[in-house]
């Protein structure tokens, strides 16, 4: 017999994919309106040529997105694995230790964490990890991996408290019923989609510290010549907010489909 899981708290009724589309479209219009209201008079950002990078800014920003996506995805995977292990450990009598780790991580700024890990794991004790940068061309997966470890670990630690709390709730059962592996993965994806703006925000400062050549580093490079590239900043903010909105809309569509399926099988 199919048991329907209770919805997570605070979730409004979602009727169809179309309602998500309409809401996402209206939110996108609101994003554009907010950015233009706050940056009024600073030029049209659409495809404005960048003085610094000698190209169309939208294309440049898109070029820088893959390394950031790689970093964020790797951190999601690491955070999920660590969160799962920690929650299991918590269930086996290590509650105090896990709670201490989570509370400590909540109170440490991500840039301090980055500096400490950089010193401990790279500069001071020489674990063979590069302190920053990305591998130069031609770059293989194996060549890129050492450069990815430190920034991805830092970003994963930043997300760990939320992931541990998530697994703890799922382990206890949401709404009185046990979660299946598929539903846990789905809810985990939704959690990450929800937290993406925060994670992306943290990745910007980490990319600056670890010299990871992604979207965050681009922001700092643009800053060097900000007088020339004001339109580029507006474009950067708009594009990033819209990409994050798109990912959140996709996550909500998954949620809607799953909910509709559960209701149909009732």
């Amino acid at each position, binding site marked *: 017999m199919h048991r329907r899981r209770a919805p*997570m*708290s*605070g*979730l409004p009724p*979602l009727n169809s994919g179309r309602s998500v589309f309409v*809401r*996402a479209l*209206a*939110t*996108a*219009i*609101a*994003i554009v*309106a*907010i950015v233009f209201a*706050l*940056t009024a008079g600073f030029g049209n950002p659409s495809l404005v040529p960048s003085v610094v990078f000698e190209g169309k800014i939208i294309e440049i920003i898109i070029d820088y997105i893959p390394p950031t996506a790689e970093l964020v995805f790797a951190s999601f995977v690491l955070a999920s694995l660590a969160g799962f292990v920690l929650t299991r450990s918590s269930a086996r009598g290590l509650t105090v230790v896990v709670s201490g780790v989570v509370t400590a991580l*909540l*109170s440490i*700024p*991500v*840039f*301090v964490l980055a*500096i400490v890990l950089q010193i401990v794991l790279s500069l001071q004790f020489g674990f063979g990890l590069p302190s920053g940068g990305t591998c130069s061309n031609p770059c293989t997966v194996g060549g890129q991996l050492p450069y990815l470890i430190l920034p991805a670990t830092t970003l994963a630690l930043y997300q760990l*408290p*939320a992931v541990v*709390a*998530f697994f703890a*709730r799922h382990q206890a059962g949401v709404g009185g019923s046990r979660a299946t592996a598929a539903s846990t993965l789905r*809810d985990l994806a*939704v*959690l990450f*989609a*929800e937290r993406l*703006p*925060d994670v*992306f*925000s*943290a990745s*910007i*400062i980490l990319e*600056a510290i670890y010299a990871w050549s992604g979207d965050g580093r681009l*922001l700092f490079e643009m*800053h060097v010549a*900000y*007088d020339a590239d*004001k339109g580029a*900043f*507006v474009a*950067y*903010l708009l594009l*990033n*907010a*819209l990409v*994050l*909105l798109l990912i*959140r*809309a996709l*996550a*909500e569509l998954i949620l809607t489909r799953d909910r509709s399926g559960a209701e149909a099988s009732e």
Partner: protein
Amino acid sequence: MSRRRVAAVIIVALVAVFIMLAFALNRFDPNSIDRNWTGEPLPPCFVNASQCYGHLLGTDNLGRDLLARSLYGSANSLGLALVALAFAVVAGLGVAMISRVPSRVGGFVVERFVAAIECFPPFAFIFIMIIVGRPDRLFTLPGIAIAGLAGLLFCPRIVRAVMSVPTARGALAVVADQAAQALTAIILLVATVDFIGWGVEPPYPSWGNMLSDAQENLSIAWWAMVFPAIWLSGALLVIEAVRRLLVGGSRSTDDHGSLV
């Protein structure tokens, strides 16, 4: 009064005593350079009593007392965060009031406004707004600008809190809880903005700019990074502990509403 509330009051009282004691022990100006400084940071007294020249926690890379800078830096950082929180609460309550107007269009517009703000990466939003507005017209006071922008970013939490409960009495508790959670997030955000040099203007200290200065001399003066970091993390832990004692439970991390 319940035991949890008593414990919260005791924690706040202990913190107040600790801060008063620290101010009483402090004999230095946060911006003045020690005359014994020879170009290298002076160590804390417990590391080298003969070389500390009365600086309990040592000095930073410019010979300025770390205890004094940590104390005044705490005041600056917390002050900025509290101003940002005030902006967030006032804006959040205002927006929530608008959403209560019996108009479907008004409610929809407010919802989209809130959802749109939640899509901005907080750090990038503040960074870009300050860069774009800084040169001449919008922001002549970076501190106030940062507080206002951080307030705008965190007002959706207050809006959602108010809208999630039907009664004013219930709303007060939820808003207080969300405000405490937002305060820790705002402190971290403000520290990050300070860290890259956009917040409290040097030579005035703040947690973020002290940590940024310390980064350059970390191999020879670990204390310049460790003590400001302890102050910052300690403040966050105290706020979180008091919040948990007064409200109970842990952070709600997956109680998401509509994502878009």
